[in-house]
C-alpha cells in the first residue's frame, strides 16, 4: 500500500480515517496528474467563473410599439403646457434606457426593455409593450423559452438567477414540478453553503462499493481494491450524438469536464478519432463499435458499455481490470437483475424529455432506488441517470429520488447557444445546430453553467441542512410530493383526489 494519502480537495475531504489507501480518488487533481498522491495538500474546490457574453444575440424579450405621431403630439402639448420647460417635457419614463436615444420613443431600444410596463402605464395611448413572439420560439415543448433564458443567463454569468416579487409560475405541476424539497428552520442545524460560511461538499463517489473489505492478519487489505472515483460535482457530461462527432464541439465539452473535475462520456470512435485522453474521458462502447476498442491505447478510469451484453461486459472487465465498468441501459430496465449478474455501476437513460417506456424519470428513479434498497444492495451500487434533467433544480430532485449523480445533455448544448430544430427528443436524432464557437468561450460557458448549478445545489443542501450531497441520495423524507400534500390537505382520510 502507498504512503498516507489525504484528499487534496476540500469537497472530497471525508476520507478514510488514517488515510492509508486511496479508496476514493479525486479526478485529475494536480497531484494525480503528476502520478503521485501527496499528503495534506489543502485545496478548496471552486469553479472559476468569468463573464462569457452570448455570441448570438437573443431576440429582445419585448417589443416596444410606439405611436409616433401621438408621441410627437404629446411632446408638443407638454411643451406648450409647461411653457417650454424642455427638461421636464422631454423627461422619459424608462429607467432602463429604452428611450435613451436622442430621438427617445421614436426609436426605442427594445433590447433594453425588461417589461416593467412603466411607460405603457403612464402613456397607454402612446406606447404598448408586447411579448416578442420570436423569443417564444426558443427551445421545444420540454425546454420552454424561459428555461432557455435561465440556462443562458447561468452560462453567461455563472451566477444564481435571482429575481424579485415571488414565484410567477403554475402551482406545482407535472414531472419534477410536482416535487418540493424540504428545509429546516429551528430544530435542526442548517448550513449556509453558498456564502461560504460553512463548507458543503458536492462530491460524489462513482464506482463499486463493496459492503465490506477483507483484511489479513497484518491489517492489510486482501485482494484488489474496488475501483472508485470521486467527481467534484454530481453531474457528468453526456454529449448529444452530433456534438460527440464534432471536431469543434467535442474538445469544449471534454476540456470543460476536465476543468470542473467531472467526467465526459464520449463514444469510443470519437475518443480515438480526436485523440482524447485523460481520466475525465469515459469511452462509451456499444457492441457494434467493438472494433474501436483495440485502438484505445490508454487505460481510462471508467469505461461505459452501451447496452447490456454479458460477454462484452466480461471482456471490458478483463481488458480494464483497474477501471470502473459502467453499463448504460434504459431507465425502465430491472437493475436488480443486472446487479445480481455483477454490475455495480449504471447509467440509466431516458429520452431527452425524460421518458422511458412511457414513464417519467422521476418515477423510474424512485422505483430503481427502492428496488435496490429492498434487496439490501443499494449501498454497493452507483446509479447515474439522464434524460429530462434540464434545469439546476432537477439535479437535487433526481438525487433525492435515488440517483448518485446525473448526466447532463441538452442543457449543455443550450448553454452553448444551440438552436433546436424541432423537438429535441431522441439522443440519436436530436437536431441541434450550434453557432461557430471559440473553444475558450465554450469551456467558460460550461464552467459558468456548472458553477451556477453547483451554487444552486448548495442553496438546496443548505436549506435541507445537509453538509454533503451524498447524504441527499434517496432522502425522500426530505422532499414533498404534490399529490401527497394535496391528498393530505384536501381529502378525507383514505379517500383519493
Amino acid at each position, binding site marked *: 500500500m502507498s504512503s498516507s494519502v489525504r484528499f487534496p480537495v476540500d469537497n472530497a475531504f471525508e476520507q478514510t480515517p488514517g488515510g492509508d489507501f486511496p479508496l476514493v480518488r479525486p479526478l485529475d487533481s494536480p497531484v494525480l496528474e503528476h502520478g503521485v498522491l501527496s499528503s495534506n495538500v489543502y485545496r478548496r474546490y471552486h469553479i472559476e467563473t468569468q463573464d462569457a457574453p452570448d455570441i448570438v444575440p437573443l431576440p429582445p424579450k419585448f417589443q416596444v410599439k410606439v405611436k409616433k405621431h401621438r408621441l410627437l403630439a404629446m411632446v408638443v402639448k407638454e411643451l406648450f403646457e409647461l411653457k417650454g*420647460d424642455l427638461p421636464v417635457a422631454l423627461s422619459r419614463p424608462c429607467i432602463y434606457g429604452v428611450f435613451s436615444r436622442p430621438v427617445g420613443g421614436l426609436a426605442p431600444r427594445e433590447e433594453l426593455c425588461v417589461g416593467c410596463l*412603466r411607460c405603457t402605464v403612464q402613456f*397607454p395611448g402612446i406606447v404598448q409593450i408586447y411579448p416578442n413572439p420570436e423569443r417564444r420560439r426558443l427551445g421545444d415543448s420540454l425546454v420552454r423559452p424561459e428555461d432557455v433564458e435561465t440556462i443562458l443567463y447561468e452560462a453567461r454569468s455563472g451566477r444564481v438567477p435571482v429575481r424579485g416579487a*415571488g*414565484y410567477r409560475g403554475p402551482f406545482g405541476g407535472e414531472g419534477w414540478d410536482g416535487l418540493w424539497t424540504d428545509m429546516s*428552520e*429551528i430544530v435542526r*442545524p442548517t448550513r449556509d453553503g453558498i456564502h461560504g460560511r460553512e463548507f458543503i461538499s458536492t462530491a460524489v463517489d462513482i464506482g463499486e462499493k463493496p459492503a465490506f473489505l477483507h483484511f489479513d492478519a497484518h491489517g492489510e487489505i486482501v485482494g484488489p481494491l474496488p475501483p472508485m472515483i470521486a467527481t467534484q460535482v454530481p453531474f457528468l457530461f453526456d454529449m448529444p450524438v452530433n456534438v460527440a462527432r464534432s471536431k469543434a464541439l467535442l474538445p469544449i465539452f471534454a476540456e470543460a469536464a476536465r476543468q470542473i473535475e467531472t467526467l465526459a462520456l464520449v463514444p469510443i470512435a470519437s475518443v480515438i478519432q480526436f485523440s482524447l485522453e485523460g481520466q475525465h474521458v469515459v469511452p462509451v462502447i456499444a457492441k457494434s463499435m467493438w472494433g474501436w476498442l483495440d485502438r484505445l491505447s490508454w487505460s481510462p478510469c471508467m469505461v461505459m458499455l452501451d447496452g447490456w451484453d454479458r460477454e462484452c461486459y466480461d471482456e471490458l472487465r478483463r481488458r480494464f481490470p483497474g477501471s470502473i465498468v459502467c453499463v448504460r441501459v434504459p431507465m425502465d430496465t430491472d437493475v436488480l437483475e443486472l446487479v445480481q449478474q455483477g454490475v455495480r455501476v449504471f447509467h440509466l437513460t431516458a429520452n431527452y424529455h425524460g421518458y422511458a417506456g412511457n414513464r417519467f424519470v422521476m418515477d423510474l428513479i424512485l422505483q430503481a432506488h427502492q428496488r435496490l434498497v429492498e434487496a439490501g444492495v443499494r449501498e454497493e451500487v452507483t446509479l447515474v441517470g439522464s434524460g429530462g434533467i434540464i434545469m439546476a433544480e432537477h439535479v437535487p430532485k433526481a438525487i433525492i429520488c435515488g440517483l448518485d449523480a446525473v448526466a447532463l445533455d441538452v442543457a449543455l448544448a443550450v448553454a452553448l447557444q444551440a438552436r433546436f430544430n424541432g423537438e429535441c427528443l431522441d439522443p440519436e436524432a436530436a437536431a441541434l445546430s450550434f453557432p461557430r464557437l471559440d473553444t475558450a468561450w465554450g469551456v467558460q460557458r460550461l464552467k459558468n453553467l456548472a458553477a451556477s448549478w453547483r451554487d444552486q445545489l448548495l442553496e438546496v443542501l443548505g*436549506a435541507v441542512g445537509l453538509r454533503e450531497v451524498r447524504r441527499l441520495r434517496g432522502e425522500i423524507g426530505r422532499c414533498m410530493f404534490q399529490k401527497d400534500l394535496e391528498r393530505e390537505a384536501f381529502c378525507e382520510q383514505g379517500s383519493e383526489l
Partner: protein
Amino acid sequence: MRAHGKTTEERIIAKHQEALHRGFQAWPSLAYDRPPAMGDARWTADLILATWIQAETGRPPTNGLEYKMGHSGGGFDALTFKFLPGGRWLPEQEAIDTSIPLNRRPYDRDIQIPVPWYGAGMSYGSISEQIMLARAKAARQWDTFTSSGEGGYPESLFPYREHVITQVATGMFGVREETISWAPIVEFKYAQGAKPGLGGHLLGDKTTVAVAKMRESVPWVSLFSPFPFHSVYSVEDHKKHIDWIKAIHPEALVAVKVSTPTDVDMVAVGSYYAGAHIIQIDGSYGGTGAAPEIAKKNIAMPIELAIPKVHRFLVQEGIREEVVLMASGGIRTADDIAKAIALGADGCVLGTTELVALGCTRCSNCERGRGCPFGLTTTDPQLSQLVDPEWGAERISHLYASFQLQLRAILRSLGLRSVQELRGRRDLLIYRGKEGRHEPAAIH
C-alpha cells in the same frame, strides 16, 4: 398637466407621478384592453388591474375583470366555496363580524384587529421610506398592523409605532431596545417563504447611507442575513429568545414567522410551547424581495397545503384555541383570505398585494439597478418620490375596504356571522385539482 415644483427634479417627478396616477385609473377601465405583457400564472393581468381598481374605489370591479382567482391551476386557484342557495344567505342588514383576536392565550395583552389581516414584513431598504409610511398610515387607519421587516424603521414612523410590528430576524438589523419596548407585537423571523433556508438579502445598491445607519452597517455593501438564528437550535433556545423579548417588554405579544417545511406542524407546536402568541406560516410562492428562483419555486410547500396541516396538528394537540395562526406567502385577494381561513388560518398577512395596490406590475425587477421603476422596492431618492405616502395610504386603505366588503359577502353567502366561524371549515370548500373535484371535510 400639474408638474409643479421649485426644481426641475421636482417638476419631473410631479409630471411622472401624475401620468402614473392617470394610468392606474385608465388601464383597469379596459379602454386599452389588458396590457399584453402584464401578468403571470399567479398574478394575472386581470388580478393586477382588479387590485388597482379596488385601490382606487374601495370596491371590487364590475367591468368583467376577474378579481377572485389567478391561473396557477392549483391551490387557491383550484378552490371554490360551496355557497348556500341565494335564499338562505344572511340578509344585507345583518352585521358580519370580520375581527379576530391576536392573542388567544388567557393572559397577556388583548389585541383585536377589525379585519383578519395585517401587513407583512418588508424592510427599510427593500422598500422606500415612503412605502413604509403609506403602509403604517393605512394600518393606523384600520387599527391593524404593519411589520417593520428586518432593518428597523426610520423616525418618520414613530408616530405610528402602536401599529408597527418590530421584526427581529437573523441579522438583527435595526433591532433596538426602544423599538422592542414600543412594539405591541414583536415578530421573530426564523424563515421566509420566498427564501426558505436562506437569510434576507439586501443588495449593495439599496444599502444607502440612511439604510446602513439604521442597520449599523457599511453603506453600499450587500447584506446577507445568516440562516438560521445561530443562537437557536432547539425549541428551548427558541423559548430563550421569547423570554429575552419579554424581559425587555413584558406587554408585547410575540409572533413567530416560519416557512413551510415538511414538519411545519411540529415547528408550530414547538413555537406555541415556547410561548408564541402568533404563528405566521409563510408559504413558498410569496415574497416581495429578491430571492433565488430555485428557492421560490422548489423549496418548501405552498401555503395552501401548509395551513390545513398546521391547523389539524394544533387541533390534535389540543392547543388550537390558544394560538393565532396567520398565513402568508401568496395571498392575493379577498377570496384567498377567506379560503386560507376556511383551510384553518385565523387570518392572513399581506405583502405583495399592498404593493400591487400601489402600482406594482409584478415585473420582478426589484433588485435590478436603481430598483423598482414605480418607486416601491427602491431606495433611489428620485424614484421613491413617485409615491406620496398619503396617496399610498389611501390606496391601501381602499383595498382593505374592498376586501372587507367581499369577505362579508362571502360569509353572508355561507350563512356565517363572523369570520371566526369560518376557521377550519374545509367542508365549505371544493377542490378542483387536476384529477377532478374533491370536497374536503372540516377540521374542528
